[in-house]
């Protein structure tokens, strides 16, 4: 009980001290407020009447979620294909790694040309940025199927589809969730990179605030994006715990 209380209170204390320190430094004139906006000013930016921050957050959230959904769907399909056949793996895997190494910022302009709307550009940027951890972790999970259980399924003449659905995918689930947790944060980053180039969402808000030296607004936008990524992460975490609670060590505690 006591350790739990400390686990909640201590990070809040850190936060309050940091905020107070910045507030004090700026009030003393040690740092200019356009260099480091004091927390009170960031809070004012968040509550400014008619601010475009919330519309931006909404757009970024939708595009990031959509891109994340694409990552999960295609990433898992690609991983299943990789795990089903050795030749498919050899033919495709090098290109799957491409998704990890491609600098999303460099190909974003191409996405603008290839797609027909801002939303599409941003969602696809989010997908490209987040698909590799889904592929890699799902594949790793599928490839680690207990060989004795695989033999058991063979003995009972289970087909490849039944084996995939009833053995390999459930077996890979803890690993898949690891991939999803990583992908969630990357999807938000990918979406904002897409917005810097293609426009829309919090990316555009930041772009618009830059020439006005509205660093308080930029900070507010960054906070929102982080909070959204964190929320997505927590949702995945809860789903993972619920679905693994009976059987996997990772879901205990």
């Amino acid at each position, binding site marked *: 009980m006591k350790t739990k209380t400390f686990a909640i209170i201590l990070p809040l204390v850190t936060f309050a001290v940091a905020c107070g320190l910045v507030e004090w430094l700026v009030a003393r004139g040690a740092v200019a407020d356009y260099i480091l906006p004091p927390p009170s000013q960031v809070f004012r930016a968040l509550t400014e009447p008619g601010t475009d921050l919330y519309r931006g957050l909404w757009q970024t959230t939708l595009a990031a979620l959509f891109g994340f959904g694409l990552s999960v769907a295609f990433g898992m399909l690609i991983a299943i294909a990789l795990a089903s056949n050795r030749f498919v793996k050899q033919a495709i895997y090098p290109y799957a790694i491409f998704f990890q190494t491609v600098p999303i910022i460099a190909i974003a302009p191409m996405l603008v040309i290839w797609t027909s709307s801002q939303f599409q550009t941003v969602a696809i940027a989010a997908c490209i940025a987040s698909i590799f951890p889904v592929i890699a972790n799902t594949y790793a999970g599928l490839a680690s199927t207990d060989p004795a259980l695989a033999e058991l399924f063979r*003995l*009972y003449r289970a087909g490849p589809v039944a084996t995939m659905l*009833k053995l390999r995918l*459930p077996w890979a689930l803890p690993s898949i969730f690891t991939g999803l947790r990583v992908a969630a944060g990357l999807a938000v980053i990918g979406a904002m990179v897409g917005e810097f180039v293609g426009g829309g969402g919090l990316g555009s808000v930041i772009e618009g605030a830059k020439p006005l030296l509205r660093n308080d607004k930029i900070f507010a936008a960054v906070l929102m994006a982080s909070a959204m990524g964190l929320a997505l992460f927590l949702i995945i975490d809860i789903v993972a715990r619920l679905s693994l609670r009976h*059987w996997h060590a990772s879901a205990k505690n």
Partner: protein
Amino acid sequence: MNPPALSPAGGTGLRLRGVQKTFPGGVRVTEPISLDIDPGDFVAIIGPSGCGKSTLLRIIAGLETPTAGTITRSPSAKSDQSHREIAYVFQDAHLLPWRTVLANVALPLELAGVSRSKRDEKSAALLRQVGLLELAGRYPSQLSGGQRMRVSLARAMVTSPDLLLLDEPFAALDEITRQQLDEWLRQLWHERRMTVLFVTHSIQEATFLAERVLVLSGRPARIVADERASAQLPAERTASLRGSATFAGLTHTLYQRLTDGQPGAA
């Protein structure tokens, strides 16, 4: 004395002719082995670690192909959808951790396409018969090692196999649990009379369980002894049997055969 307790044999007969296995790279695992096993017999196979007894079992199960030789099984009398001729039990329980005990036991029926209500009914009936019904809703992580192994055996039995193959199934359990499971398995065989092939490295376990004990030599494996335990031991095998003089005599004989079969033996 011929006890009336034995129900008629329900298993399949096995005939091995010159079955031999060489691993890639030329390592000979077994000499050509020829062997006949009667329907409904309980055969234990003992031998030193790594002698190829597990390989022999895997070949019979169809999990590995022999380099040479043939295996024939007498045809099964049963033919309904839920029936499988062979069941195999591994060294560890190997249950699906995300399924309840009931769903684990029902798995082979599920893979055979048996409807849900039918397979649940059948699995529950089996669990009741083997005294595990109160565990039906638990997950494997909530069971003890012995309970898990019993569920694994129940899963093997749910398809009413003619041939039950067990590869050192109780080796990882503590001695007391192991003896309990031996008695339990013997009881199960008594009631169902499927053909059982039981691989173990424990002479005591082989003697206690089996009607017939085969002793294999070190690699490459060949059969160095073939003892009819049922000729000396009663059909009803209870815990007290382990302390009897006949039991001690038989294990001693088997021990002799086992050591004689080792390379470098005098």
